[in-house]
């Protein structure tokens, strides 16, 4: 009987040790893992290329206004935006700009009219408002602009007038 009791105690001790060790592993091994992702969309810069400047014919003494129709006039300025194919773009511009006489003392106000098309075809272009958000570069990443407008020269001082035109194009 004495021998049997000793064996039982050994079994009990062995079982206890195993169980406590398992509990300790649960505590120290209580770990979790998780993942998140990181993402960035790189797009090509939009490049604006001027294909030709606006060309004004010499103004006649009796002429009151100069008008360049962006949809049909061959004197329009022409630009193209180059970027990611099929990307949506936003186009904005200031409609009225000041042209300054070479002497710096006189000025004229030029009112721009812009037509745009994702094809290199002026006649099928659409007139753009000063802020357009639903335009798309074509499959080659191009969008064309024809720049016209009108200016009143009725009281203009003879000479050369210069100014610039700013158009802003950005990805949406």
């Amino acid at each position, binding site marked *: 009987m004495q021998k*049997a009791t000793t064996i039982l105690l050994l*079994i*009990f001790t062995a079982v206890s040790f195993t169980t406590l060790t398992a509990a300790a592993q649960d505590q120290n091994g209580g770990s979790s893992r*998780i993942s*998140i992702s*990181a993402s*960035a969309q790189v797009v090509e810069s939009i490049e604006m290329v001027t294909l030709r400047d606006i060309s004004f014919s010499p103004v006649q003494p009796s002429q009151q206004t100069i008008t360049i129709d962006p949809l049909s006039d061959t004197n329009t300025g022409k630009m193209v935006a180059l970027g990611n194919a099929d990307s949506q773009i936003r186009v904005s511009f200031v409609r009225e700009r000041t042209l300054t006489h070479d002497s710096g003392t006189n000025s004229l106000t030029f009112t721009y009219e812009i037509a745009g098309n994702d094809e290199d075809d002026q006649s099928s272009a659409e007139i753009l408002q000063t802020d357009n958000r639903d335009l798309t570069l074509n499959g080659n990443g191009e969008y064309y602009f024809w720049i016209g407008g009108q200016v009143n020269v009725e009281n203009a001082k003879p000479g050369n007038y210069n100014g610039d035109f700013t158009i802003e194009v950005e990805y949406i």
Partner: protein
Amino acid sequence: MKKLFTVISLLLLPIWALQAQTLALNIEAPPELTITVISDGVLDFGSLLQNQGTVQIQLQDPQTETISIEGEHNRDVRVTIYPPPALQLDADNKLPFTLGAAYANDGEDNKNQATVFSGNTATFPIYQDDGGGPPPWAKGGKKGGGPPTSKAYLYIYGDITVGNDRAGTYTGTINISVEYD
């Protein structure tokens, strides 16, 4: 008869002993660590131009990813973050990525109270008692008994550098490991 009594004892006593150990396990088990992404799970740098240079998502930015860590309130946890060295378009096109991380352990999801990691690993108590009012578990213990739990918050951010890289979508995976210290 004496021999028979000994055999019966051998069969019964170990069973009794095993039952007692099962009860002890239930008492000692700590609450498991629960990690939950409570933002959208994507550290999104958005649309970037070629050659834009270094672009940062900072701790206070809304794009920062937030993860909650729930566990026994008085235990320390060790958080290890494994960031990708770069976001990749493919094997040849990569945007170098630098990890930023911080944690808040005052019981609230509050970036203003966050402590910035030094490196990719940090060890901290799940709840840091700053003496500013009752702890989150003061209104009652965990439902169903067991030790009270609390939540710490982990914030993941960082920066990437965009050079003359090809256009496209660059991605990477950030792995996060949390364990009781």
